[in-house]
């Protein structure tokens, strides 16, 4: 197991290096440069390029960048000028993570519950209702559901604040809007998986042993059926935690999401590289954790290794 982890770590590091190198060069291939604006003249731009070391040959820029990266320093943002990319991420990530954790928990609990209800009531009204919610969740994008929630619960009913992130009441609508898609995904997965498991021999054996329906469902059916849900939990967590552009924009949450877009729009090289590295490492780590959870949920996987 220890050797396996080391191996995975090494592969992860190579992946991360390839990622940042590709992004480093690709972003510089985009037309334009960070200081391009309607008002700036060539001489003034040259001053700015010099100030940020962008006038140096590209291999020197790359070496400086890698050196700083090893120290965990992404450098100064080219747009915010007096804030480093580390500061930008440190400031924004807690908001995205807070919203993301809420959304993951809500999506997992509600999604799995809906899936179970649907499976246990197959082809009855509870099933239809659950799957209706799931289909709505998958097909209605968050930029529709978000404003709709705002209009109904904030503008019309005046139950919740329109936007921003200043306490529990502010979290309800964005959490719901953000989790809906994953919730629907998990509900459908859980339902399919439950129906799959119910025909397995060990369920029949359990019934034959005379276990109560509750015990069968709780101990045998759900536990086995939940594996596919755990699989998607890794990437879903990484995506939800590292900031989502649309929901954060609609609810004016100061999270990470907007920097993916703003970084590219402004050609803020350091911000784009910082965000890519951060997201990349997060995704790799999340998948890693999922592998371990896998082993915990299903002893067969642990033994196989």
């Amino acid at each position, binding site marked *: 197991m220890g050797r396996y982890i080391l191996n995975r770590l090494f592969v992860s590091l190579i992946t991360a290096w390839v990622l940042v190198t590709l992004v480093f060069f690709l972003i510089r291939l*985009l037309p334009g440069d960070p200081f391009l604006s*309607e*008002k700036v*003249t060539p001489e003034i731009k040259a001053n700015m390029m010099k100030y940020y070391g962008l006038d140096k040959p590209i291999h020197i820029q790359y070496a400086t960048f890698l050196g700083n990266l090893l120290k965990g320093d992404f450098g100064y943002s080219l747009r*915010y000028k*007096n804030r480093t990319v580390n*500061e930008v991420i440190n400031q924004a990530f807690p908001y995205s993570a807070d919203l993301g954790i809420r959304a993951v928990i809500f999506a997992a609990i509600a999604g799995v519950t809906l899936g179970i209800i649907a499976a246990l009531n197959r082809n009855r009204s509870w099933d239809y209702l659950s799957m209706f919610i799931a289909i709505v969740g998958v097909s209605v994008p968050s930029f529709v559901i978000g404003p709709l929630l*705002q209009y109904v619960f904030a503008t019309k009913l005046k139950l919740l604040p329109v936007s*921003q992130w200043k306490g529990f009441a502010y979290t309800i609508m964005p959490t719901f809007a953000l989790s809906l898609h994953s919730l629907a995904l998990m509900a459908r997965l859980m339902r399919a998986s439950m129906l799959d498991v119910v025909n397995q021999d060990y369920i029949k054996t359990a019934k034959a042993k005379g276990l109560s329906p509750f015990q069968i469902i709780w101990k045998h059916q759900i536990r086995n059926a939940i594996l596919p849900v755990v699989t998607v939990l890794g990437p879903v967590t990484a995506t939800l935690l590292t900031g989502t552009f649309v929901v954060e924009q609609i609810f*004016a949450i100061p999270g990470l999401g907007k920097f993916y877009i703003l970084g590219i729009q402004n050609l803020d090289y350091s911000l784009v590289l910082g965000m890519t590295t951060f997201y990349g490492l997060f995704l790799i780590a999340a998948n890693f954790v999922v592998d371990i959870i896998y082993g915990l949920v299903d002893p067969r996987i642990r033994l196989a290794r």
Partner: protein
Amino acid sequence: MLRKSLALAIILLLVLGVVAGCGQQASQQGGDQQQQQEKEIAFTISAEVPNLDPQKATDTYAILVGNAIFEGLIRVHGDGNIQPGMAEKWDVSEDKKTWTFHLRDAKWSDGTPVTAYDFEYAFKRLLDPNTASEYSYQGYYILNGEKFNKGEITDPSQVGVKALDEKTLEIKLENPVKYFESLMSFLSFMPVRKDFVEKMGEKFAADADKLLYNGPFILKEWKHEQELILEKNPNYWNKDAIKIDRVKIYIVNDPNTAYQMYENGETDWEYIPPELVEQVAAEGKAKYFYDGAEFYLQFNVKRPGKPWLANENFQRAVGFAIDREALVKSVMKGVSDPATRYVLPQLAGLEKKFVEEYPYEFYSKNADTAKAKEYLEKAMKELNISDPSKLTFEYLTDDTQRAKLTAEIIQDQLKQNLGIEITVKQVPFKQRLELMNKRDYDVVFAGWGPDYDDPMTYIDMWVTGGGHNNTGWSNKEYDELVKFAKTTDDFKKRADAMFEAEKLLMEKGPIVPVYFRQRAWVCGDHVKGLVTNFVGPTFDFVYADVEK
């Protein structure tokens, strides 16, 4: 049984969530009521203020906030209304090239006095190439300012700004500048204190506690990407004129969310999202103001293989074939004005507005098909081309929805009215600028906002070798008119020269004006004294008041 209890549990959870939410909001509203004695205004801005360093900041929100937390030598409040700021009074020499400002007793937010040395330091910091300030060109009016910024001279003491003593600042200019007073209210010319800037280093102005304030308000809290909270500055020299105790500026990017916050009573004014303009206008709640932006078509006259782009008659033919009124009506829902001349109607003339003193209309609001065809005939004769469908070009524009709509309408109008076919190329903003700088385009739909309240901010763009002239156009007469206007100390002759230049540009130049932009907004009736501007801070709330 299991099903029932599960369903029950879910319902219970949902109900609990809603109840908990309501409880919290109710207690917050209670808190707000306690603060009611203090006067407060709130509004949104659509993006974080990237930077509040006066000499490095460039964007519209820094200018808006800077106007409230800093004060330059002079304050401009509303249209051309010059007021004393940090300078109590000032005089100008006979040749209009030396200005002497006499400072009042004023304090920084840490209690130390604001001195002329702070201004000298700030102006030189703006021009120092090591500051790498994007707006350093604003200081090129100052004697040797441009040379110092471009590294042609390295001794800062040669730059024409000097503190004679703690209270007297002398500024020497390269040439007389008619709008120098209003220029002194611009963000780039706000004072900063040397020891403080040097102590903060790269972190200067990064947070609320890393700045010194000398304006009507101080920045109390700056939650990046979330909100800025300003409070009345107890040290401000004119604090009795300031009625508002607290200003809350929320950062909300989504225009619809921002508008719902206004509708919900969380903010005091807001722009109207484009798709709601007609509806809000029908309810009689919409207000409008010109934000200073002008949009025009710009021809690349040095485009290989397309000589018609340089043909003056072809350019005019395109200009007269555009139905500006129809365009504004369908794209902007009637908010904005068709541009029939080049100079923005809001800009100052000698006494009144420039366009009132020099009335002129080159293009018409609607398409003038007869004239357009006449120009096209002439162009075709000159170019020796008999088939108008050969006179095609690529129209370069941004990748926004509005840019697309505008392009499609112009494309259609040119086909209907002239019989010429154009193609449209949409690219991201930065890429458009890059293509313009490389002069790699046929015709581009571009825009410009004024840097100061004078027609020169538009006129001097098109001189030969000008930093913004990427049309390839060069006209000796035009260059001379601009040069004369920039150096003469006779302001009447200066205005005459600018008018001649404008006419020349319309008759022979590569610019076809399309529209002057207006913004539609809403504002609560309880807000008094809020001023909108087309140059400088979009909203000036410094002397605002609320009645509730």
